[in-house]
């Protein structure tokens, strides 16, 4: 049994504690905002926050979340509406297929939490290990800068 907080509520999952967090989130807890991309911690599509720090959930054992607080894309909504950063991604139309978006948004949220006014270069550097194949990079950077400006 593994207990942790997920997007502000307590959850308890009956699962071997070496199962990777991603599969627990997606299958047991029906979370959509974490995507399988590579299973090798190389692309960032599965990024979630544990106590505010971005982790690659595809290679993080669920036991690493025990007693801690996990935030997924769903957890950034505010009163059922898109949160500030999410709204900025919508406003900038910062996606084509959108498969990498959840990892991008959570990685960017972690950046904004520690640096509320990042430069273009700081955003690029923070997101450099998150891969996008459609070529939405500049839109994503604009969305993060917009969210910072509007905060």
């Amino acid at each position, binding site marked *: 049994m593994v207990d942790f907080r997920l997007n502000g509520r307590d959850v308890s999952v009956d699962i*071997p504690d070496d*199962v*990777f967090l991603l*599969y627990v989130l*997606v*299958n047991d807890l*029906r*979370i*959509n*905002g974490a*995507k*399988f*991309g*590579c*299973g*090798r911690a*190389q*692309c960032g*599509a599965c990024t979630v926050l544990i106590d505010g720090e971005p982790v690659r959930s595809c290679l993080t054992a669920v036991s690493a979340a025990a007693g801690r607080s996990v935030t*997924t*894309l*769903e957890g*950034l*909504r505010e009163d059922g509406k*898109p949160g500030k950063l*999410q709204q900025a*991604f*919508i406003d900038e*139309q910062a*996606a*084509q*297929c*959108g*498969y*990498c*978006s*959840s990892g991008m*948004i959570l990685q960017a949220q972690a950046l904004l939490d520690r640096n509320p006014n990042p430069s273009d*270069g700081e*955003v*690029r*550097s923070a*997101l*450099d*290990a*998150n*891969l*996008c*194949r*459609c*070529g*939405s*990079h*500049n*839109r*994503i*950077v604009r969305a993060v800068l917009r969210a910072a400006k509007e905060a």
Partner: protein
Amino acid sequence: MSQSFTLGRRGFLQALGSLTLSFMVPLDLAYAQAPAKLPGDLKTAPMLSAWLRINADGTVTLMIGKVELGQGILTAVTQICADELDVNIERINIISGDTAIVPDEGTTAGSQSMPGCAPAVQQASAEVRQILLGLAAAKLGHPAEALKVADGTVTGPGSSKATYWELVTGKELEREATGKTPLKPVSEHRYIGKSVTRVDIPAKMTGEAIFLQEHRPEAMVHGRIVRPPTYSARLVNADTKRIESMPGVLKVVRNGSFLGVIAEREDQALAAAAALESVAEWEVQNVLPGHENIYDWLVKAKSEDKEIHKKARSTGGEPAKVIEATYQRPYHMHASIGPSAAIATMGSNGTLTIQTHSQSVFETAPAIAKMLGLDPAKVRCQHMQGSGCYGHNMADDAAADAALLAVELPNRPVRLLYTRDQEHKWEPYGSAMVIKTKAAVDNQGNVLDWDLELWSTPHGTRPGGEPGNLLSARYLEKPFKQPVPRNGGPPNYAADRNAIALYDFPGQRVLLHFITEMPLRVSSTRGLGAYANVFAIESFIDELARASGADPLEYRLRYLKDKRARDVLVKAAETFGWDKFEKKENRGRGIAFAQYKNYAGFCAVAMEVEVSRRNGRVRVIRVSTAADSGHIVSPDGISNQIEGGVIQSLSWSLKEEVKFDTARVLSEDWASYPILTFSEVPPIEVSLIDRPGEPYLGTGEASQGPTSAALANAIFDATGVRYRRLPFTPERVKAGLGV
């Protein structure tokens, strides 16, 4: 998921409260006269009811055969429908790519969604509006000309009113389009030409279920497969007993050299697949040429040769000089960020239902039926969105593999997901190519004769209803043979796409060497042959301009007669600041142009680069593009496609090459097949040239080719070295610089 996923067409329509649609209303007078030519995909699916339903609850259901791949097609056609039908955009729900419900519009590929689907939706919407107006006229007792429509409410003289939702009972739309209803003038468009929020983006940014990967039908189980170590390997032995008793394992499937497992939980399926891989013994052969030798292999391989273009020169004198060059592109991956997936369920009624992110649901469903020996009417594919695909990736293979597993465990939906290395190593790549160019020029460096020869393996092995095009079908105990691929279509179509230069040279000849043998698995990858052909043409014309001492932009314009082609080139040059460019050390500018397929979207790309002589790195400083895609429906949608195409093409051209030795593919993940990252992406300016009233041309592949050549031309300008072999990695650039 929505109810529509459990209902067939009839059930679906009944669920919406419409009448049975099994009879035809008599043809009206207008149609009894000679029918006008129908636009786009209405030609093959002329029934209005196939495209549109007006629902009693105040909504409109738009049904299309094209599918969303991240290119924004659902939004663009929704804009068009809202305008022509005169309803607010929020009323429109769209169903796409369900073989049991929507019109068959073939494959979603080749930048054909806007030219094929959009005009059909536009005409169908206009005709439905006219029918509704006729119904309103009868009800209100006023002529249609006296009526006005706003958001589905028809208003007549006095305060008489009727709404679409109360006018329609169902049967009125069960008739063929006439092609005679006029479309609205551009001045009356509310949505066409404006950037609206894409219909799918809010859900994707907030974690609502929208992707196939988030579809979790009741009692779903998890499937994984084990692939052979190489293309030609055959399974010799696999002791599966231990795996069958592993926790959660429901089934181990072995059929010839096809191996798979089904387990209750995903982690159990992963563990079982790993165990299965460890017990499988394979016979392996070394039969590949290796990536270093592929270009020699291509020019020596047996080929079907065809002169696709010949224009004999009637003017000009003796050539003063002949200039030649050879260009090479490696195999590229689609390299979708999410590996392919599918969910298949073998129902107790004998119907196999597959949720898939395939681009070709109408061809993949019958191919799977044939593979399994099922009645094609019993296999239904439903498109759901997946990760961006950029062509024929493994979506169809995943659908087939999910089906192979699901038939072994009826009544349980089986979700099949590939691993990263399975997707990287087994997807059908964009073919490696060699292109040789030769020009005879006069004393002033003007082209007299232009000659282009290209060598390529196929660019199209989509399912096409044939199981042999589904990967695993070739490994079954009774294997299906892959059909010999054709180059398909008219000249300039696939391998030879954009091989005919649009420049008006006095003499021109283009020769295709089409190689049907495939050392690596290949199929349609964004742009097909156009990426390399445009790279070669636009590099070579730059070489000719330089050789004659001419400005590369001016030199192109000498030979380019088409006004729209000239306009995008000039526009890109203007926004780039071509004339004001100040050359700095190790920096350079380049420009290139193409009209995709020679009949679709026009795109010109100008860029500035900086090349490090120390480490060979190419940094793209900035990019300016101009695009003409005909009448613009969504400006931001087009910008997004052009921008994304530039970035992906830069990634291909700077970094990407599928590596393989004599036995196997070596590019198995993002470390061994790196792509462009945030810090390497330059600012990109997109200028759009709108052509109101002109046909929609489609944009998705327009910027791939010009980007690669603009890059090569800029690197030449910076270094004085001409790079003709893609990608321009630091090692290659350093070798060229002699450092």
